[in-house]
C-alpha cells in the first residue's frame, strides 16, 4: 500500500475520510468550525464521487435523529458538528448509544455560549461525556483522518457510537501534510457496512427502542456499561488491524513519553499535545525530569493506563481545556484525580484550566508553570487575578 502525501486542513481530511468510508447516509447541519467537513463532502456527493444519501436537515437535533433512523435500518452513518450543534444533539446522543447504533460523529471542538465564541475548547464534548459515546481526541490532522477511519471500525464492533474530536481551528482549519491511504486499502479495512446491523427494511419486522420500565430499564443500562467496558480491547484490536492495513501505529487509549523516571508528569487531551510534549522535553534540558501523557480516548476513561503512566511521579499537572464549574476544576483533572485515588502513594495533582474559547497556551506559560513548581489545586492559566483596589 502506498500512501499519498497531500496538504489538507483537518476538515478536508475528515471529509476525505468520509468519502473513503463510503457511508450509506450522512445527515448533517453546518456549524463553525465543522462546516467545511459537510460542505466538502456534499460536493463529493454532488460530483458523484461517493454514493451516499445526503440528507440536508434543518437543525442538529434533526441531523442526529435522521442518523439514528438510518443506523437503525442498518446503514453506515457519519455526521459532524460543533459546540451549540452538539448541545442541540444532546437529547439524541443518548438515543444513539441506548439503541447501540454505530454512528460516527466528528466534533470540531468549540467553546459554548455565552458569551458567544467560535474558537476551540473542550466544553462541548465534555458536556456529552456521560452520553454513552466513545470519545477520542485527535492530536493532529493526520490523527483526525486516521481516527475517523478507526472510529468506524470500532463503532461497528463495539455496537456503540463514537465521537472523534478535533480542536476547532487549531486542527479544523490548519493545513498539514497528511498521508492519505488508497481507497481500496480503506475499503479492505472497513468492509461494506455494519457487520450485522439492524434491519428495519425487509426480513422480520422489529421494534427498536420499546418502552422499558423499572423491571428492565436498569438491565439495558448495565448492558450498555458492559459494552463500554469492552471498548479498550476492541480499540487495541482496531489499532492492530490499522497497522496491518496502513502501516501506521496509532495509540489506542493513552500515549506516554518519559514517564518512567518522571518527577512531574503533564497530562493533556487533543491538539495541545505537541506543545505540552515539547514543554516536557525543554524541562528535561533544564534538568527537570518531566514526563508527557496524552489521553487519546477519554471515554471509556483509561484509568488503569493512567495509574501505570503517572503512578511513579510526585507531581501530576493536568491541562484541562474545559471547566466543570463544580469547584473541583476541569473534567480531565477530576477524573485523573479519581483514577489516582486508588494508588497507595498518590502523586499530587494540579489541575490547570487553559485555552478556553481559543485562548493561546504559550510556551513561556508552560515553562514558568514547571519552573515555579506546581502546587496542587486548580489554576486558571493566563487569567490575571483581580488586584485588590486601594480605597481612593
Amino acid at each position, binding site marked *: 500500500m502506498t500512501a499519498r502525501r497531500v496538504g489538507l486542513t483537518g476538515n478536508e481530511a475528515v471529509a476525505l475520510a468520509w468519502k473513503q468510508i463510503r457511508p450509506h447516509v450522512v445527515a448533517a447541519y453546518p456549524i463553525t468550525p465543522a462546516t467545511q467537513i459537510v460542505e466538502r463532502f456534499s460536493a463529493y456527493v454532488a460530483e458523484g464521487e461517493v454514493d451516499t444519501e445526503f440528507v440536508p436537515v434543518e437543525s442538529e437535533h434533526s441531523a442526529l435523529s435522521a442518523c439514528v433512523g438510518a443506523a437503525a435500518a442498518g446503514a453506515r452513518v457519519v455526521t459532524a458538528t460543533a459546540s451549540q450543534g452538539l448541545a442541540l444533539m444532546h437529547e439524541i446522543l443518548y438515543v444513539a448509544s*441506548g*439503541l*447501540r*447504533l454505530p454512528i460516527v460523529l466528528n466534533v470540531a471542538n468549540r467553546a459554548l455560549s455565552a458569551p458567544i465564541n467560535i474558537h476551540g475548547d473542550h466544553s462541548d464534548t465534555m458536556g456529552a461525556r456521560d452520553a454513552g459515546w466513545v470519545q477520542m481526541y485527535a492530536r493532529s490532522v493526520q490523527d483526525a483522518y486516521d481516527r475517523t477511519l478507526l472510529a468506524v471500525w470500532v463503532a461497528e464492533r463495539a*455496537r456503540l457510537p463514537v465521537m472523534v474530536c478535533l480542536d476547532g481551528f487549531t486542527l479544523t482549519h490548519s493545513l498539514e501534510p497528511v498521508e492519505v491511504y488508497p481507497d481500496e486499502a480503506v475499503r479492505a479495512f472497513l468492509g461494506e457496512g455494519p457487520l450485522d446491523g*439492524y434491519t428495519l427494511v425487509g426480513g*422480520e*419486522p*422489529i*421494534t*427498536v*427502542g*420499546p418502552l*422499558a420500565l423499572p*423491571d*428492565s430499564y*436498569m*438491565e*439495558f443500562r*448495565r*448492558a*450498555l456499561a*458492559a*459494552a463500554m467496558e469492552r471498548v479498550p480491547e476492541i480499540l487495541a484490536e482496531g489499532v492492530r488491524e490499522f497497522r496491518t492495513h496502513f502501516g501506521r501505529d496509532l495509540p489506542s487509549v493513552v500515549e506516554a513519553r518519559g514517564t518512567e523516571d518522571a518527577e512531574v508528569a503533564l497530562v493533556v487531551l487533543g491538539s495541545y499535545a505537541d506543545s505540552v510534549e515539547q514543554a516536557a522535553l525543554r524541562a528535561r534540558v533544564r534538568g527537570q525530569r518531566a514526563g508527557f501523557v496524552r489521553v487519546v480516548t477519554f471515554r471509556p476513561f483509561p484509568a488503569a493506563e493512567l495509574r501505570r503512566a503517572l503512578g511513579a511521579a510526585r507531581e501530576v499537572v493536568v491541562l484541562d481545556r474545559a471547566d466543570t464549574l463544580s469547584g473541583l476544576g476541569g473534567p480531565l483533572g477530576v477524573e485523573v484525580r479519581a483514577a489516582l485515588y486508588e494508588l497507595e502513594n498518590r502523586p499530587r495533582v494540579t489541575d490547570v484550566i487553559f485555552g478556553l474559547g481559543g485562548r493561546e497556551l504559550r510556551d513561556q506559560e508552560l515553562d514558568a508553570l514547571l519552573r515555579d513548581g506546581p502546587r496542587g489545586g486548580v489554576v486558571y492559566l493566563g487569567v490575571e487575578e483581580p488586584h485588590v483596589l486601594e480605597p481612593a
Partner: protein
Amino acid sequence: MAARWQALDRGPVIPARSSVSYRTWDWRQLRPVLDLDRCVHCMLCWLYCPDSAIRARGGRVVEVDYEHCKGCGVCAAVCPPRASAIRMVPEGAP
C-alpha cells in the same frame, strides 16, 4: 420482562408486534360484567370505551375484551339507567 442484562447486548430491540397482541389489563381493579339479557344495544359503551375494549358485531354488543379493558368504568357509567347492563365488580371476584 426481567431479562438478564448479559442477554441484552444488542440493545432494546424486540420482534415487532401491534398493540392488539399486547395484554394491557394487568393493573385492572374493577372488571365490567356485561349482562346481555339486559343490554339494549344502544352502543354507548362501545362508543365511549377509551380502549376499544367493547366488542360488537353487526351493530350489537357482543362481549368485553378483558385483555385490553383497564376497568375505568366509563362503560358502566354511560349505560342507560333503565338497562343497567354493566356492573363493575372487583377483579378476582366471581
